């Protein structure tokens, strides 16, 4: 537990915050979008389960651009 006390939350909090924004936008987009590359539910799992990289992966390769 002392590990948590040592951490400088003023530095970590903004990162957690933008990470949450990224996650929320990926989820909103996944709900609104008609088709993705590959099954939609797989992307839902990837976005929710894989920290940080999941939403980025979704935006880079999961979205069908056209």
């Amino acid at each position, binding site marked *: 537990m002392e590990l948590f006390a040592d951490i400088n939350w003023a530095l970590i909090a903004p990162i957690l915050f933008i990470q949450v924004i990224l996650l929320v936008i990926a989820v909103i987009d996944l709900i609104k979008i008609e088709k993705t590359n590959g099954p939609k539910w797989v992307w839902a799992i990837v976005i929710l389960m894989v920290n940080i990289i999941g939403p980025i992966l979704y*935006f880079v390769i999961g979205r069908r651009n056209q």
Partner: protein
Amino acid sequence: MKQWFTLLNKEFLEMARNYKWIWMPITFILLGVMDPLTTYYLPEILNSVGGLPEGAIFEMPEPSAQEVFIMSLGQYQMIGILIIALSMMATVAGERKSGVAQLILVKPVSYFSYITSKWAAALILIVVSLFLGMLASWYYTGVLFEFIPFGTFMESFGLYSLWLILVLSFVILCSAMFMQPVAAGMVALVTVFISTIIGGSFQHLLEWSPTQLLPYVSERLITEKWPEHVWPATGITLTMTVLFVLLAIYIFKRKELAD
């Protein structure tokens, strides 16, 4: 000129609808702060993961602020380039495949403004994202280690962004060359990574190569002096950028007419 801005606006609108304006800057910021944080908290992370024998003492050399900042640039060099290539590979190829390009080009829109408006929009997005990312990295490095002078930071940003702009121009060139977005992305990525490896191995022979910009930025940060060949390398980078864009227009025009 008015038409060109209309096209640019169309690109920006599309980027906003794709959420590119949100996820690209966030990704670059996360990439930038990752290295300062993990380097700083490495002893704690190792402790909490455990596995070290009781009483084992790890003397880790404390890296300098400059070294940590250069590590962040290494992230852009790998993952940043990957993201640029994958997210921009469809700019021309995708529109041609879906027929949007034909829809636009039946109107009196020149090939020049079609390609350059796409290029400019992507350039602005990437430069803004890179700036925010490097700024975050600079700030976190400053708080956790030591502040690098802001002027030096701006210089390294300016020089490094030229390299990424060159990469972007090459991705757009590939996108104009190939019908399949995936083919364009792969060709661009392989070429960029192979040329950085070649540039890294033959540093003393290819002093003017654009791939040397990152080593030169690192050298500038550590020694506080401009390396000897930095200006010719910059000039060649800018020239190649213009050439790639012009070549993209030329190839796109010929392909368009051929189809």
